[in-house]
């Protein structure tokens, strides 16, 4: 049994071993492993936790915001738009 794996839950053991394989099988093994491992939901090493633990320390922070933005009239894009609208407007008169 590999030393690094000791005491780890089984899931991480698999990862550790794969990393080892990578040393000898670098060319064909590595990319496959990272791709598959990459987007897999991991087993939690702990089964349960208290309700308090789920409280995000940053919960008071603003996490989502509206997708529109009234204030930002200073950037180039907004200026360009203003300009263009003015052109349309003046051509009408």
């Amino acid at each position: 049994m590999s030393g690094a794996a000791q005491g780890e839950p089984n899931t991480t053991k698999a990862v550790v071993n794969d990393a080892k394989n990578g040393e000898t099988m670098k060319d064909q093994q590595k990319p496959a492993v990272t791709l598959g491992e990459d987007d897999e939901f991991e087993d939690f090493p702990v089964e349960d936790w208290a309700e308090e633990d789920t409280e995000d320390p940053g919960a008071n922070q603003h996490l989502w915001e509206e997708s529109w933005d009234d204030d930002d009239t200073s950037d180039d894009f907004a200026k360009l738009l203003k300009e263009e609208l003015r052109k349309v407007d003046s051509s009408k008169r």
Partner: protein
Amino acid sequence: MDTVLYEFRTAIRTSNASLLASTITPAPPAHDPGRLYAILRSTNSYSIEADVRYGLMQNNREISLTKARSAAWLDVYIAYYKVVVVLLDAEEKTNQGKLLEADWNRVYEAWKELVTTLIKGFNAGHFEGWTTPCLYVAVRCLREFAIKADEANTRTKGAITFNSGLQDDVVGALDKNDKLEDAARVINRIFGLCISDRASLDESRKWGVYYITNMMFKTYFKLNSISLSKNILRSLNATASDLPNFALFPKSHQVTFNYYVGVVSFLDEDYTRAESHLAAAHRLCPAVPFAHKNRALILTYLIPCRLLTTHVLPTPSLLAPYPGLQQLFGPLSACVRRGDLAGFDAALVAGEADFVKRRIYLTLERGRDVAVRNLFRKVFLAGGFEPVKDGQGGEAERLRRTRIPLAEFAAAVRVGTRADAREGGAGEGGLEQDEVECMLANLIYKNLMKGYISRAHGMVVLSKAGAFPGTGV
């Protein structure tokens, strides 16, 4: 083997499920790193049965197992010993770099034997409900060993040219995920074993239903047969009234289940349902290092989901802990907010490979509507207010101009798509009036904008009460 059986007796006497599960785990516990080798040395395949039998009988008084139960556990530990033998062999060879000699198929089959023994024991009623976590170990490792065996088989197939002497012909015919598909069938049986348990709830295997379901999801995702997950969900729905309250299950089961149902709904384009499950997963997932990657995964789907359902974007403080997500969604979000269509398209192209890999490309692409909405909203805001009539109140009652020439929207689209730059000159640009009308009609249809197009006058007439629902104007 003595230590294992000692811990077995302790676990049975005290009904300690996690200790019991650890005695059949094919990895040494933290406090006893040399356990598997000790087991290997303590006995051999001729005397294992007698040894375990003796270990179970000895001090049986303190746990008073019935003969049948004792026999069932005997089978489990004999199977466990066989796993240890082949597993250590495979691991040693792997560590020595002799990858082609490490026989993971044998490990898989040995473990499957143990799992089958467990299933038999549960079916015959020899194992009590509290021992269900043994099934978690069974399923978790079955899946892992199956993946290793499949990987090894792929490897041997690649090397078959110079190693053909050792291989039989069957290997060539094996499917890439042969073992994992086999594992899925076994896990399905265990799912049935849990969900159909008729024992009273405090003694029921039903408490294992979500763990096993999650493993099933995970396996189907790996096999790329995500649609099969729906069969599981159907069975769960059918028995929903018999299951314990979902909120009473361990949080890890809840979070994982919510994540997978969320993603399945997401891929099914049922974004409202996806959002509620993903939001629940996000809420219950602790903000601690061990859950960091899972939180990032939840957000990977929650962010595109919310863009479509409630049209909100992640703030920098939400993305800050996850550089990967920042990279994935940062530029796109900025363009949506500004109504920068060309920037949006460029960001979509730039991230295409990653978006496709995570299966969020199509959803994000639909987010373009929100970007268009924001662009048109700017036109509306730039239009200013109607001249104040006599008798009208102050600022608050001023009406925004709600009749807007189509030409202004066309101009905005030109700016948004940088059509002028592309066409190499100002003026009408490359965009047809029809296209702009089409974009407007789309937004109106999707209720992102309220009003109608008056083609005769070349005007768009917007609603006086909330032209862009949910955006404050």
